[in-house]
């Protein structure tokens, strides 16, 4: 793998020049790249599960035995990562179907969406990896050290980054106008936020049991 197409270069490229990188990957998707996407998504989810339970990551690293209680805010990351895994899995299937259809338009479009989701799965991964030192040194106890607002900022950055990248990704090699892409992105992010807040409201005000969420983690 040369410098231009190396994995690290591609990852940084997505953050530094997303439009160009998206085009580059769209032009030459391969089965290897698709498997790589799936792997990235799986690793992301594992990472998110560990980080959403901050001292859990510490526990793993220092060889302790179990995860602590999960926390609702970190659940957002997990939900996003789960969406990534599901969608990328589906898109692998679509891509396989696309190959048999001799590179139909459907396949072409699926590749584009796939790449968006590739980025989608990487965003929490890269942002949260910046928190590893804090997790190791201070146990990831954001609330204990009055860092709730920083944590909300981090959460906002994840959503914000999602917004920008999805907005740009939607416009690549498609006839969607910038305005249309913006509307679609707002709807998409809006739905996720509404779902999250609906769950919180349901728990705190209408006696909704969410203990089943524990099984996801």
């Amino acid at each position, binding site marked *: 793998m040369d410098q231009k197409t190396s994995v690290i270069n591609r990852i*940084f490229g997505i*953050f*530094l*020049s997303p439009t160009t990188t998206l085009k580059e990957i769209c032009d030459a998707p391969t089965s290897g790249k698709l498997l790589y996407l799936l792997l990235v998504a799986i690793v992301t989810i594992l990472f998110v599960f560990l980080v959403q339970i901050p*001292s*859990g990551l510490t*526990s793993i690293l220092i060889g*302790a*035995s*179990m*995860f*602590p*209680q*999960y*926390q*609702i805010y970190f659940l957002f990351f997990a939900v996003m990562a789960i969406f990534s895994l599901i969608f990328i899995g589906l898109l692998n299937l679509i891509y396989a179907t696309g190959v048999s259809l001799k590179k139909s338009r459907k396949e072409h479009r699926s590749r584009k969406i796939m790449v968006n989701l590739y980025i989608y799965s990487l965003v929490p991964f890269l*942002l949260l990896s*910046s*928190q590893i*030192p*804090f997790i190791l*040194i*201070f*146990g990831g*106890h*954001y*609330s*204990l*050290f*009055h*860092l709730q607002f*920083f944590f909300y900022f*981090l959460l906002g*950055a994840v959503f914000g980054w999602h917004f920008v990248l999805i907005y740009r990704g939607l416009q690549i090699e498609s006839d969607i106008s910038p305005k249309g892409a913006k509307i679609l992105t707002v709807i998409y992010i809006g739905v996720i936020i509404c779902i999250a807040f609906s769950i*919180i409201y349901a*728990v*705190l*005000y*209408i*006696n*909704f*049991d*969410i*203990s089943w*969420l524990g099984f996801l983690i």
Partner: protein
Amino acid sequence: MQITTRKLGFTIFFILILSFPLVFAMPFHFKLSEQNVCTRVAEYTMNELDYSIFTDWGKGLCIHGLLDAAEVTGDEKYRAFAQCWVDQSIRTQTDEGAFGHGDMAVGDSTAIGLSVLNFYNRTGDPKYLEAAIKHLNYLRSPERVWVDGPPLIGGSSHLANKAELWIDHLYMVIPFWAQMGVTLGNDTYIDEAVNQIQVHLKHLQEPVTKLVAHIWSETEGYLDSNLWGRGVGWATASIARILGIIPNTHSNYSYLLNTVLSMLASLDDFQDSSGLWHTIVNDSTTYLETSCSTLFAYTIAKLYHINQTWIDDGNRTMAIRAFNAVVGKVDQWGVVHWCSGGTGANPYGVPRADYAIPWGQGMFLSMYREFEAVNWTGGI
């Protein structure tokens, strides 16, 4: 050029979000390390546990623990925090009367009950008493499942849909029931609470050691006959708490006192040299566990607090050794380590938790308050 600028911007952003929490947390870390163990545990319990997620009895114990921490430290923020969640448990009270939200176990939803009454006594706000009465009516309802006898005579099942006696019920439910009798001036409720203890002990107490098993089913017998440490702790701590609630003229007062003292005598034989007890108290091959040790220490300090003549030097030494051992399990952040987790399938095979467990945190605070009250926190 544009790429280079973006690369620089990205690197700066990454370094900022990496270093900011480290720098910001440093002074709080030094401040925390200077605070005493009770404050550390209270701070962690209030700030780090997610009360919107864990909806069961663990929250009830944490809330009560924070009220105890408010008494010890004089810091009203713990009480204000507790009040938010007590109010929330009332806001989400079911039509039947159960506190809290989404918890199927009858007994577990009651765990926050004493905190509700605490705020009634403190504020005089009738909403707390009305909610407590609604919950008591729910507990006393003939439509609930009763074990080995008719309603209010037989045992109150811990579960909503099965006839099972759980030793947990003694701690989660019975002190609230007795306290309601005192608050409302109704001796019947007090008698019912004491009767529940007798019914539970009839089925769960082991005759030789006088300690108690975990679960007894009306249809299947013992579902768990182990002398589970925390379960034994629920029983001793419940009785100690009730002795502090009901009048000492009650006809069964001596029975309750003798029962808990006989348990303590037996526990003395099983205490490890570390000061802790094993999760199965009579099986030294099982791991040493913190929460049961906290409950036993709490029991002795509580009894001493009520009447100093009940506790001899042997029990006092046992309690202080346990206290020292439990304090030794608290880390720099205020996490009480080595409590066992939930008791689902294979409960004793579950490793000790190396993170904060709600009941470990909450009971630590309650224990500390009793030790502070009897001036035992200085150790032996």
